[in-house]
């Protein structure tokens, strides 16, 4: 179960280092779990843009954790922190660890990483057969989006509807970076980054850190605040976009393998799409949400645009999506940005989401994705009984 969560200040944090915000989020999560730092005996982290391949050890060292029985990385970009949750669950269930700290922090907005686009490319782009053709991350998602529009006769307004709905949620979150309401016309009037994606179809670039502590069920001081991991699934497909496009079986560029991860999570939880009270769906771009809504069974193939336009993912809708404002409007501190979907789901399931609380939230899905809709993690979290 998830015993505690923490977040650093999000947005622009020029006064603190990446290590500083990371440790800040970690300490908050440990405190929220009712634990002391020395109770932590496992640590998982994605080093992302940090130069040292031992960055996870450095973070543990900074916290004063001399002996751990698990300290490792999950090098899966945006999907890392969903994958880490499953690893942590296995660790506490098997007795390998008592309390696992999962933490990540990046400074994409005011950090010292020079040429962040280039750094991002090291992991997200293939450098031999794709980057020479000027493929940036928005270009990859543009290729995905264009093919989606072609296959289903959808329009860029269908994608824009996701940005509009997400902003409605952000308006209810005092901590969100972008809170001013927007319309579909605003999205379509914003500059094209890589067609058909406009600036407002793209996630923010932020500083921020987040953390959660995973412990065995029933071990915390306040069981009412324990959040159950009802089901978790991962699925990874390919890397090169041509290979994704060629596809295999039921899957291709537009029909992603997130359905495989979702099926595992649904089966473990004994729940289906209609049972989710909210879903925090990884929104690196609007198209990322669109394909996941379909592949996870929230709506039919090619129907995401109408599903979103009809208000289903709005505040008060059938399936509120990204109630914190997501990567599109809340904050996107790189690979750890997806953690904010988890911390928000925990707040919602504890009934601690204040002005944006989803009424009687009992079950929440959280997804994360990376490498252009090819690596996915799907978690279903549940409120304490």
């Amino acid at each position, binding site marked *: 179960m998830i015993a505690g969560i923490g977040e650093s200040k999000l947005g622009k944090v020029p006064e603190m280092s990446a290590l500083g915000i990371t440790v800040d989020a970690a300490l908050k999560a440990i405190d929220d779990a009712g634990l002391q730092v020395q109770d932590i005996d496992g640590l998982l982290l994605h080093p992302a843009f940090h130069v040292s391949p031992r960055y996870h050890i450095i973070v543990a060292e900074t916290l004063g954790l001399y002996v751990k029985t698990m300290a490792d990385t999950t090098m899966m970009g945006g999907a890392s922190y969903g994958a880490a949750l499953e690893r942590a669950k296995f660790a506490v269930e098997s007795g390998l660890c008592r309390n696992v700290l999962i933490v990540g922090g990046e400074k994409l907005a005011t950090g010292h990483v020079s040429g962040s686009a280039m750094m991002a490319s090291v992991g997200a782009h293939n450098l031999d057969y794709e980057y020479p053709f000027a493929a940036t991350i928005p270009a990859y998602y543009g290729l995905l989006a264009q093919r989606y529009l072609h296959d289903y006769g959808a329009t860029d307004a269908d994608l824009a509807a996701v940005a509009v709905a997400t902003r409605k949620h952000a308006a209810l979150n005092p901590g969100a970076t972008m809170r001013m309401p927007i319309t579909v016309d605003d999205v379509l009037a914003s500059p094209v980054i890589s067609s058909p994606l406009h600036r407002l179809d793209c996630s923010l670039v932020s500083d921020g850190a987040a953390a959660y502590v995973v412990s065995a069920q029933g071990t915390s001081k306040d069981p009412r605040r324990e959040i159950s991991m009802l089901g978790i699934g991962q699925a990874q497909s390919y890397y090169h976009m041509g290979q994704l*496009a*060629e596809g295999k079986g039921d899957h291709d560029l537009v029909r992603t393998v997130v359905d495989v991860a979702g099926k595992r999570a649904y089966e473990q939880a004994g729940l289906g799409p209609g049972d989710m009270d909210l879903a925090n769906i990884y929104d690196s771009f609007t198209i990322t949400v669109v394909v996941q809504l379909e592949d996870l069974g929230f709506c039919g193939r090619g129907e995401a645009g109408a599903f979103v336009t009809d208000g289903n993912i709005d505040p008060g809708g059938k399936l509120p999506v990204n109630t914190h404002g997501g990567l599109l409007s809340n904050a996107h501190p790189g690979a750890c940005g997806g953690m904010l979907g988890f911390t928000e789901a925990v707040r919602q399931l504890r009934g601690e989401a204040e002005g944006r609380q989803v009424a009687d939230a009992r079950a929440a899905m959280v997804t994360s994705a990376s490498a252009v809709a090819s690596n996915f993690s799907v978690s279903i979290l549940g409120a304490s009984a």
Partner: protein
Amino acid sequence: MAHITRPLPTITQDSQEFWASTHDHAMKLQRCDRCGRFWYYPGPVCHYCGSTAFTWTPVSGKGTIYSYSLLERARGNPFEGDVPIAIILVRLEEGPVMMSNLVDYGDGDLAVDAAVEVTYEDVTDEVTLPVFRPAAR
């Protein structure tokens, strides 16, 4: 053709035949000796059947656009000043899908299913990239 500042690939034992073929302006891909399929990108084993026996085989250079994106902003990248750049996924006649660019194109050419043919951009003495232009009508 507009100049694009190209990040350069690393040429390895797996890819040297491919890059030699584009350098000669006559692209070859690996064709599996067992299942007969072409594969791209260059690699030591057939993606489809696992055979390590293959023959570098000339391809027609003809294909259709599977998807495209017109890159208009690319801050922080070496080609930031060279936008707009048309990025395409090309489904080759022989089967594989490769990422490339569409060059020397006009209105209506950048479209899904549009027919394209390979041309070559000599980037350095060593590296020539296969790019595509609208197929001759």
